């Protein structure tokens, strides 16, 4: 391997004189503690590298050893259920509660390999070699860059992740040895056979998302909001309850306690669909705000590579990135250190293309092995002072299909999730209407959605009017609209992630809830038309139930919920009777 000697060092950046050749983005190991770094520039005799760990103690003359390979992580069956730093080095199993520089890449795990291919067969890239029986079954595939005749396949048994379990001979006669895990250069997207259009939603269990602003499997969503508006809680809620097969959660420049929370909760919570602990389907990548900035930049690529690895097994993967703004800031810091010309708000000119490249890695695909898989990206954005006109939010908006804008005012009234229904959108909604019709069990989904959105739009308009003339001066129909809009907000859009009853809402319950609310609207409109005062409707006992619909009718109360329209009819009927009697 090539070597270089440090000639200059300052902070996480070093220059070194090369003997032998290096390439840009090559991983290097630096100094006696073998700190991990990456080459970022080559100029004549000299290389510039950034180091992903604390450089304290390094000095000129220290060695920089090349690895011959771009910055890579090892992808294999040992990832699920683990917590790793931004370079996929395990954070568990250390004896010190503080992170010391020179964290190892972790010992290989041992897994039971069950062969599923026959020696002699010709295998394409992505073909199945076998499976491992871990907490959940995972496939071992022919990795990218490898294909050919399967000369030898290990017998069923326990192997280390790096042990050779298959030998293939390629067309050019080259022999490839394959282990259960393989290195992957994080900045390179993993190959697929074809990209597919959106066809099914990723069900999140959050009413405002699934019903109003759905994200498709393989879709891309941004979650912008000022501090404390609920990005992390929502990302965690999605990580818990969405119907993906695998969750990759990357805490990029955020809080250590939030990672601890995920670690604490996920093993205790059950996946509502499989009954297994949520931890088993989750990979956590934690590069908290106090960990080295350069590694923060890499962590996003590490996370998406891990997500693609599971996608290639024919799984639906959701990637939660909290927060992409911290990643962009890391980009800015590294760029500044390289003396690059700063653009808007100091970000490098390539910010936009980096964001595009990242979101482009989300997709529903046909894998090389011919299966359907997907990676859905949900990226939190933390705009300075909550101002959505700053560069990261603006550029992100160009590349995502769903925009879930968090609103400070809602958050301050503790109305969660604080997604603003008028500032948010989903470009996937129309494509998903078919799914709701044929597979989702709610053919009316698209019309219901439209009704709710237009009601909320009218609410904003009417509230502006009410501010001028007073609410009481509005015509009865319009007063009723405001009442209905309040009910939709309180009874449907509000959903606390901390409520055991309401933190997850199945598509069936969502449909039942929206139906009863719309039925109320219909009956109420008819009543007002026939002369009933909106104030009388507001006093109906059922209104109080609709207000607290999410809280009072959990997943186990669907039967009770289906009775509610009868109660509603009864109350409206008696309203007319009373009205008639009075007359």
């Amino acid at each position, binding site marked *: 391997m090539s070597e270089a000697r440090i*000639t*200059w*060092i*300052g*902070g996480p950046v070093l220059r070194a004189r090369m003997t032998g050749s290096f390439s840009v983005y090559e991983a290097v190991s630096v100094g006696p503690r073998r700190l991990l770094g990456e080459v970022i520039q080559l100029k004549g005799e000299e290389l510039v590298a950034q180091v992903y760990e604390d*450089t*304290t*103690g*390094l*000095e*000129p003359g220290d060695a920089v050893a090349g690895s011959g390979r771009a910055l890579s992580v090892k992808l294999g069956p040992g990832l699920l259920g683990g*917590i790793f730093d931004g370079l996929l080095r395990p*954070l568990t199993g*250390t004896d*010190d*509660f*503080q*992170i*010391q520089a020179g964290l190892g890449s972790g010992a290989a795990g041992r897994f039971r390999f069950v062969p599923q291919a026959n020696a002699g067969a010709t295998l394409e890239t992505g073909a199945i070699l076998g499976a491992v029986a871990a907490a959940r079954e995972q496939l071992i595939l022919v990795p990218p860059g490898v294909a050919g005749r399967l000369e030898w396949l290990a017998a069923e048994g326990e192997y280390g992740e790096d042990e050779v379990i298959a030998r293939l001979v390629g067309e050019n006669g080259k022999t490839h040895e394959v282990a259960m895990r393989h290195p992957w250069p994080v900045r390179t997207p993993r190959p697929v056979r074809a990209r597919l259009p959106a066809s099914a939603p990723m069900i999140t269990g959050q009413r405002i998302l699934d019903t109003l602003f759905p994200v498709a499997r393989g879709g891309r969503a941004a979650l912008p909001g*000022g*501090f*404390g508006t609920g990005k992390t809680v929502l990302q965690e809620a999605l990580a818990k309850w969405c119907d993906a097969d695998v969750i990759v959660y990357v*805490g990029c*420049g955020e809080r*250590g*306690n939030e*990672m*601890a*929370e995920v*670690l*604490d909760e996920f093993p205790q919570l059950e996946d509502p669909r499989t009954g297994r602990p949520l931890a088993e389907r989750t990979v956590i990548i934690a590069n*908290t*705000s*106090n*960990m080295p*900035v350069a590694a923060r930049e890499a962590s996003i690529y590490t996370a998406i590579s891990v997500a693609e690895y599971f996608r290639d097994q024919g799984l639906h993967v959701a990637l939660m990135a909290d927060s992409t703004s911290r990643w962009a*800031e890391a980009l800015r*810091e590294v760029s*500044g250190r390289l003396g690059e010309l*700063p653009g808007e708000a*100091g970000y490098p000119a390539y910010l936009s293309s980096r964001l595009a490249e990242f979101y482009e890695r989300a997709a529903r695909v046909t894998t090389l092995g011919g299966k359907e898989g997907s990676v859905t990206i949900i990226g939190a954005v*933390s705009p*300075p*002072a909550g*101002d959505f006109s700053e560069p990261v939010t603006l550029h992100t908006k160009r590349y995502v299909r769903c925009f879930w804008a968090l609103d400070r005012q809602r958050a*301050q*009234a*503790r109305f969660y999730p604080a997604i603003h229904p008028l500032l948010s959108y989903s470009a996937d909604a129309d494509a998903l209407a078919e799914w709701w019709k044929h597979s989702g069990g709610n053919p009316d989904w698209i019309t219901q959605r439209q009704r709710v959105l237009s009601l909320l739009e009218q609410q904003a308009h009417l509230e502006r009017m009410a*501010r001028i003339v*007073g*609410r*009481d001066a509005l015509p009865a129909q319009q007063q009723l609209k405001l009442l209905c809009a309040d009910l939709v907000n*309180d009874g449907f859009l509000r959903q606390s992630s*901390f409520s055991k009853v309401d933190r997850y809402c199945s598509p069936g319950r969502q449909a039942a809830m929206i139906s009863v609310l719309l039925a109320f609207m219909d009956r109420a409109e008819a009543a007002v038309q026939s002369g009933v005062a909106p104030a009388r409707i*507001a*006093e109906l006992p059922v*209104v*109080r139930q609709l*207000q*607290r619909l999410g809280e009072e009718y959990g997943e186990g109360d669907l039967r009770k919920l289906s009775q509610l329209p009868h109660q509603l009819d009864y109350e409206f009927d008696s309203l007319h009777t009373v009205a008639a009697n009075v007359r």
Partner: protein
Amino acid sequence: MFADLLLEGAVTRIEGPLLFAKRAARVGLNSAVEVVGNDGGTRLGRIAALDEQSMVIEVLQSTTGLDLAGTRVRLRPEPLLFGVGPNLLGRIFDSVGRPIDGGPPVSARARMRIEGLAINPSWRALPRDFIETGVSTIDLLNSLVRGQKLPLFSAGGLPHDRLATQIAQRARLRGGKSEEFAVVFAGMGVPHDTAEQFRRAMESSGALGHTVLFLNLADEPGMQRLLTPRYALTAAEYLAFVEGRHVLVVLTDMTNYCEALREVSASHGEIPGRKGYPGYMYSDLAALYERAGCIRGRPGTLTQLPILTMPGDDIGHPIPDLTGYITEGQIVLDRELDRKGIYPPIKVLPSLSRLMDSGIGEGYTDADHPALAHQLFAAYARAMRVRTLASVMGEQGLPDADRKFLEFGARFEEQFVNQAASRTLEESMQSGWDVLRGLPHNELARLSDAQIRKHLEEPAHA
């Protein structure tokens, strides 16, 4: 290992806080340096960059009075360390960890890096232990838990010091024996009397023996202000994670700290970010704030109560903004409430405690605590909207229900936010239910029928 060496005549250039010197001996990046001037004064510094011939020393105290010929440089074989031990308690230090109370040097049991090391997130335990501060708007609405970092966002002239002192005095009362407790106070650019008041308050509550003070006074150069919280947090980490105490760290005023950061960044010729603050201010602040927490298997905790004054009373200013993005909530003080004579003048709506949800409710405080808190927030938010409305079109134009909310708003501020004496959590909850009374029950969407019956109807009938 590198040697402990004294270099003479090695300095070739001095530029603001930076000293350029010949690399006449082996030394590693970030090593501690003592720069001794002709005047005999010693200044702390560290190696900021190295090449084959030379080194750049960042002097962390004033370089005034240094010259090329007479400046000697002592290279230490290690980064900046602070000698810590149990006798820290009851002591007063200057901004760089030297005793200024006339007492003997601290006999160090360990020497720890002032920069600290990042806590491995997989070693963190979730903060869950409720601290009763006696302040209703905190205990009931924005609960503080051990291991949390919860700043006070204040402004010039508001009683943040009084509030912080009150919290520091009370926080030791709940749970645990008193010797398990410690308070670390780091004053950055604060006037002497602020520090003195705090010291006296601790003394009068008998906690001085459990208190450590680090003082960077207003007239000291900005540079070493950056070191003060690092020394203080190193002491706190020792007391919490080695000695197993529950440590509360008061950091005041973080705005002065950030100003110093801006000044130093400018003197390094760095490209300024928003409002002139360096682009790395987020990471720099995070390196301080993230030192709070609880560690699995260790009895101690480190809670932070940073105080900052919002420049121009603007919560969107980079200092409060970046702080809010790092800390686990914020308590916002408000000039208008203060003018109305309400103490503590806590502006409830923009205040938040993010760790509250894991420390309150069934099994922690009271089963109805979360619902009551949410109902108060929702009702007060509505009251504030109505208040704005009323200021435009007058109270007469308001529907009945709105007028009730308007009255609630006033009641909430005068009876609930405002408090003459400390309250227990139970008293705070009672006050919360009391102010809610009078609102139409069908507008209380955050409370269940059972909660309304139990807390709002029965006592009224009684």
